[in-house]
């Protein structure tokens, strides 16, 4: 029997699981934002395309300071600026969050396929929405910093 899925709560749980397991960091999630505008400050965005039972993407948006802190904690070393290690680490974080979301959607008999992560670095870019998609954004606090996990998707019928 198919379960209904609170996708926002699943993103929160999946992201917290990744950070507590791999970085020993307990995240604080802010209110889940659904289908509303939200201000995102990002210097690096790592995205994963989603296919199969739905089409869309999952993105992790980080300011530079948060991205370097995540990477430094992940690798156990000081990281000063956004370099290849940071792009790779944030991409892998996105990959694991998407992997947990895949398990969540499987509970509703929706099988998701994950693409390879892609990271974009810059001060002036935006991720364009998919027409008629559901857009869910969850802001997370990590210490003094903040980052965002965004999911845009349309169910394939």
């Amino acid at each position, binding site marked *: 029997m198919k379960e209904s899925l609170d996708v926002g709560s699943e993103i929160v749980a999946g992201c917290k699981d990744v950070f507590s*397991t791999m970085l020993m960091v307990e995240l604080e999630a802010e209110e889940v934002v659904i289908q509303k505008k939200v201000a995102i400050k990002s210097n690096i965005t790592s995205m994963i395309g989603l296919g199969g039972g739905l089409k869309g993407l999952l993105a992790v948006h980080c300011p530079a300071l948060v991205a370097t802190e995540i990477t430094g904690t992940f690798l156990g070393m000081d990281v000063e600026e956004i370099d290849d290690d940071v792009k790779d*680490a944030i991409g*892998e974080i996105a*990959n694991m969050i*998407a*992997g947990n979301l*895949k398990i969540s959607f499987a509970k509703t008999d929706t099988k998701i396929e994950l693409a*390879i992560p892609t990271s974009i670095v810059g001060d002036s870019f935006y991720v364009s929405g998919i027409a008629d998609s559901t857009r869910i954004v969850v802001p997370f606090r990590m210490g003094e910093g903040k980052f965002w996990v965004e999911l845009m998707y349309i169910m394939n019928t």
Partner: protein
Amino acid sequence: MGKNVLLVDDSSTMRKIIGRSLRQAGIEFDNIFEAADGLEALEILDKEKVDIVLSDINMPNMDGISFLKEKATRESVKNIPVLMISTETGDDIIGEAKALGALGAIKKPFTPDKVNEVLGPLL
């Protein structure tokens, strides 16, 4: 003579994390070889003595499933054990990996304890 491991993952970060988790789990290898995809892994298996492979599934160029298929055709390396470490946990894809010779799977994210629990008995 000590043991050698080959880590196969397109993420250099994840290869470092797996290596660190092995040390934290108290599992020591003489050499840790690294490959970014299945093609690189096959090249290393041809050249180096490897006792066990820890491989991701979703990778560019040659993914983990294709790697298992190709490895099974090569007489000199086909019996080297492989353990999957991946975000992929579905019964279908893990079942396919096991049917191709993988000994099991560790789900990302993972702890050193989990690595020890699954890998320890295989060494």
